[in-house]
């Protein structure tokens, strides 16, 4: 049972345009959400996060939006750059102290020059 779903395995966008990566979750106990970025042969690196008490968090070119009623979050990258080409994982944490991050299966973003 996948509790965090990234239904698009891949996404291609033109340099300078907006990239939108989507993520859905089923567990209503999740109350903190994170995006990680992964380059080939490297471990994931933390990108941006959002608490369930917010509906938007912005950091430079990256913005995460959370729609709790729809159990949906998205990551917007504006403008997209070729260096953004990577696999993006959505992850979720439940309420409470245990840090059992549940990851989605990832979306491969390719930014075309």
């Amino acid at each position: 049972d996948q509790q965090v779903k990234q239904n698009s395995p891949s996404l291609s966008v033109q340099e300078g345009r907006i990239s939108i990566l989507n993520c859905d979750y089923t567990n209503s106990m999740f109350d903190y959400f994170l995006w990680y970025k992964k380059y080939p042969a490297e471990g994931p690196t933390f990108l941006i996060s959002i608490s369930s008490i917010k509906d938007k968090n912005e950091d430079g070119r990256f913005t995460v939006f959370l729609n709790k009623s729809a159990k949906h979050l998205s990551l917007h990258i504006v403008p997209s750059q070729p260096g953004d080409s990577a696999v993006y994982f959505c992850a979720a944490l439940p309420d409470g102290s245990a840090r059992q991050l549940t990851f989605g299966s990832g979306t491969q973003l390719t930014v075309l020059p």
Partner: protein
Amino acid sequence: EAGVAQSPRYKIIEKRQSVAFWCNPISGHATLYWYQQILGQGPKLLIQFQNNGVVDDSQLPKDRFSAERLKGVDSTLKIQPAKLEDSAVYLCASSSGPNYNSPLHFGNGTRLTVT
């Protein structure tokens, strides 16, 4: 600061053999995690340590997998005997604490191929 160190980077073994992976977390990080990432999937938590104690090992296949962090610093993960379905990247991560404002820092992983 130095990142999370893992070794080896790659390992190829035959099924039923044993294998061990090593991880050295970021200095001062009390919390250490082992994740398994199968091709095409997201990382899945195997075990979480807080200092040298186990916090969560509910998804660790304990009949064949074991992990230890004896002195609360570096850690080893062992598989004995290995199965074909254990082929994956094994990621070690650390954080300064088990709370929301201490994100995980991942190592580059060990890619295991079981033939």
